[in-house]
């Protein structure tokens, strides 16, 4: 639900800014001036190599505090499973040889550093025997199995070649207040 809201707001922000920029240019510039500058921009762009676009470059990174191997770590507020950060991975990476599930459950956690709420995606790492270290079960916003997008109890090894559960990571996918 919140993800849809974020996407909607992002589209709205892009549309709104494009509209404002167009109106400003229309008010300030003559048509010939606009065309000549646009031509320069197109010609100039061609002279630059096509650089890879890093999404993270455009975004501010999330400031962290605490021990990622502790269940009390802020990202784990709706976590259920074992922590990949204790199993050869991290809170964003699966341990060697495991397979990341593309289908997840979500939660919203407050980062104590900036006090902001972040939308979290909890991805299971699959295809290996369970790593039984650092078991962690938090239920903030957890819902029953029939409402499975917010259910932490479910084994989320769907869409993977192997369906055995290994451990779980927690990714920030956006700020809830954006």
């Amino acid at each position, binding site marked *: 639900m919140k993800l849809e809201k974020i996407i909607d707001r992002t589209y709205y922000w892009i549309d709104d800014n494009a509209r404002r920029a167009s109106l400003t240019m229309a008010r300030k510039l003559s048509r010939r001036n606009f065309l000549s500058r646009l031509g320069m921009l197109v010609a100039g762009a061609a002279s630059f190599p096509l650089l890879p676009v890093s999404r993270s470059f455009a975004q501010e990174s999330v400031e962290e505090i605490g021990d990622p191997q502790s269940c009390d770590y802020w990202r784990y507020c709706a976590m259920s499973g074992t922590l990949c950060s204790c199993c050869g991975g991290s809170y964003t990476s699966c341990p060697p040889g495991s397979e990341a599930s593309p289908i997840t459950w979500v939660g919203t956690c407050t980062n104590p550093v900036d006090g902001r709420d972040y939308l979290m995606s909890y991805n299971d790492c699959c*295809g290996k025997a369970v790593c039984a270290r650092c078991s962690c079960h938090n*239920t903030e916003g957890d819902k*029953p*199995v029939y*409402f*499975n997008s917010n259910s932490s109890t479910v084994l989320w090894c*769907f869409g993977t070649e192997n*369906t055995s559960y290994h451990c779980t990571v927690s990714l920030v996918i956006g700020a809830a207040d954006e």
Partner: protein
Amino acid sequence: MRLMAPVFAGLLLITEFAIAQITPEEISIETMPERGDNWFIGKTGNGGYIFDASNGEMKGMLSLSRYTPAVTFSPPREEFYAAESYLSRGAHGDRTDIVAIYDYENLSPIAEIEIPNYIARLQVRSHLGLLNNGRHLAVLNMNPGHSVTIVDVEDRIFTHEASTPGCAVIMPVSDNDFLQVCGDGTLQLIQLDLSGFEENRVRSDVFFSVIEDAVFDRVASSSNGWFLVTHSGTIFHVTTDDDEIIISEGWNPRSEAEKNWRPGGRNEIITAHHASGLIYLAMHEGPIDTHHEPGTEIWVLDSNTQRRISKIELSTPANSILVTQEDDPKLLIVDSEGASHVYDAFTLSYERSIQIPGSTAFEDL
């Protein structure tokens, strides 16, 4: 020393004589005795331990897959049914999901039926249900959308898969029907025909909010329907009349001073004794979203008067409970440290603890 020699010789002779009298023992294999009162299955990660709660004696064990959600028993057919899931190389390899059938006499697998490879691999009692006709077994799937597999245990065949988006839990009602809880705050009734195919599907009115106060996905059967409980402790009784879903007014056993008390536990938190109408509910004190906190108390509720009549205060909180259905029922508790305990379900007195390593929940037998 001269005197001792004949004494030793005599002792040796006696010993040899005694050994010669012993008949070598032969190994034998037990078969299950006739089922007694208050027998139950202690479900673990690798099987079902069968016990007599009256004396704590173990009778035998079913070997089950580690992903088995539940196992159920058919008294007239003397068979156990379990949904199981296996990977061909243990932690990886090809997945095969089956309904396994075990006989009562030897607790051995006697048949298996391959089913779609996406059973919901969680230890939840209501993810498996033998419908009241004793013929059709319903198994909950998750892929990640929900569906229900129907197996005919008499003909040993997979018959049908019903897509049930947004709805989970299997609560057998009537002869060949089952109810489900849905994320939009309704119940869904699915009615099967004689062959086990879906014949009719009905949705109730909205009666709860999954955001404000969700109904647990752990439920308890009653004499004619099912008890549901919300995260705040409101209890509903649901029944059906043909294709009509009947939901009672909700009631909450908490007093004004007990607003911070909530149901909770990692597994089965509610159970009911059919004949008396008593409900047993694992409760703890805590804020919202603590619905998996184990119960520090077991509240005993009378569904007829809709009041709490007693409670058990536990030294170690409860993660899972079950009451047997005998006239002198036992209340079974798995605590948060994994120990299993037996209480008299009417006097609420502690009777014994039973060692069931890794026990997560119970099934009545």
